[in-house]
């Protein structure tokens, strides 16, 4: 029921997530922000079990900040992704975190990048990624219409198409979505796509 997806464009990376917090058939709230801003130039969209999601993403966020304080320079996106994967892998055989993550970041030298991190500590550097039931619709939409070096407008249009497809085809589609973007000017919220006001 939770949908998170992302893609890389020309000089930016985009992450889209639904904003529903659900407990079996009850929607507790429909404006829950699941895309965490890790640091100035990193976005982390997470989906999975409620407690795990909040605890793991906050743990990663604090450790990324700690590295910066200790060493004076921020982590690269690749390093942050590998750190996350390492934590998931260590916990996997003892007390696994049931969280799937899409990590988007912008580095001055390598540009924008997107990482797909599974709950069983799979790590892939990709151009487009999706998690959840929405991935069944978003992945093929992105495969068909994505091309490298898209502009922001083209990417937003593609994201909107994916959201529309999820809304019309998924039986329990989430009501609202949030779009966040990261580029050379930093990570920030871009816009919301709402059907309900909460």
């Amino acid at each position: 029921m939770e949908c998170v997806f992302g893609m890389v464009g020309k000089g930016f990376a985009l992450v889209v997530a639904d904003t529903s917090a659900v407990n079996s058939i009850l929607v507790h709230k429909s404006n829950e922000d699941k895309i965490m801003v890790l640091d100035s130039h990193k976005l982390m969209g997470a989906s999975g079990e409620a407690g795990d999601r909040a605890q793991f993403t906050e743990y990663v966020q604090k450790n990324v900040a700690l590295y910066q304080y200790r060493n004076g320079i921020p982590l690269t996106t690749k390093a942050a992704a590998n750190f996350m994967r390492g934590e998931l892998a260590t916990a996997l055989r003892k007390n696994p975190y049931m969280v799937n993550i899409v990590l988007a970041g912008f580095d001055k030298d390598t540009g924008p990048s997107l990482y797909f991190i599974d709950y069983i500590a799979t790590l892939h550097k990709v151009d487009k990624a999706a998690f959840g039931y929405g991935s069944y619709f978003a992945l093929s939409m992105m495969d068909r219409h994505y091309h490298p070096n898209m502009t922001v407008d083209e990417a937003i249009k593609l994201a909107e198409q994916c959201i529309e497809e999820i809304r019309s085809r998924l039986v329990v589609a989430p009501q609202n979505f949030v779009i966040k973007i990261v580029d050379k000017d930093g990570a920030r919220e871009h816009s919301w796509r709402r059907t309900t006001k909460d």
Partner: protein
Amino acid sequence: MNRVKYRISWFIVVQEITSSNTVVRTFFLLNQRVNDLVDISQLKGFRFEFSLSVEIMKLDFSGLESSAPLYGGSNELLSDGFSAAPSFDLPVTSDFDGFQKNSIQMVKPAKGTTTLAFIFKEGVMVAADSRASMGGYISSQSVKKIIEINPYMLGTMAGGAADCQFWHRNLGIKCRLHELANKRRISVTGASKLLANILYSYRGMGLSVGTMIAGWDEKGPGLYYVDSEGGRLKGTKFSVGSGSPYAYGVLDSGYKYDLTVDEAAELARRAIYHATFRDGASGGVASVYHVGPNGWTKLSGDDVGELHYSYYPVEPAIVEQEMTEAVVA
């Protein structure tokens, strides 16, 4: 080929052992006539194929076989039905009465209570019922489900009573220690985070807690939902428990940010009443508390049975004819 015909509840089963020693069972639906075994293959049915070599007990049905149709009804009806009856597939289960009950049990929230809280202009309104149930037995109608953590913060109880009471008391201790160590009151955000971290560390060990932390701190009114799965949500309107879907309906339709304290209390009371009306695990007394800038106050505690008659008073029945005593001559 050994053909044995017998009946399983609403189906007729024809069991054959074919020459290759396989048992083939064919099930036929109720409204199809099975008189002539030769016509069986043309009827609708399910086929299950097993490979077993089984010793078949040959039962003697000669006494039952007759020319009359098997399930009553007139001959013409059945013969018409036989040729072109509209029919639908029954769910593939033998427990027709129970299967819907199981699917409802699967989705209904588990914790037998109704609690709700919402933020509005004048603070936070918190309300709860007071019934404790053990399965189908009502063990108490007067449980205090709104727990006073400290004079400006309230917690609601849903799930295991012992778990909620103990961990709220523990949270109260931690909040007081924070006050003493930092010379200022703890925020609602901080208090809910403390509780959420504790519950997260006991995840999977069987705690059952679905609570809302409501309070007023320097940033104004605050409301958080915390549960034993480790989830923590910040929001303006929550309801927890088995009666929560019913309460949400009333709450969502009547909610406005600009309610007065009395209007908000009436909305909360009404939502609890409607939930207790429909949910068997909720009932007793609807208590309503208000958390304002100076702390919490208890506004009311009304028995939901009495609330029912105050909302829906009994109309005297219209008497059409009156019977009077017959005059004895």
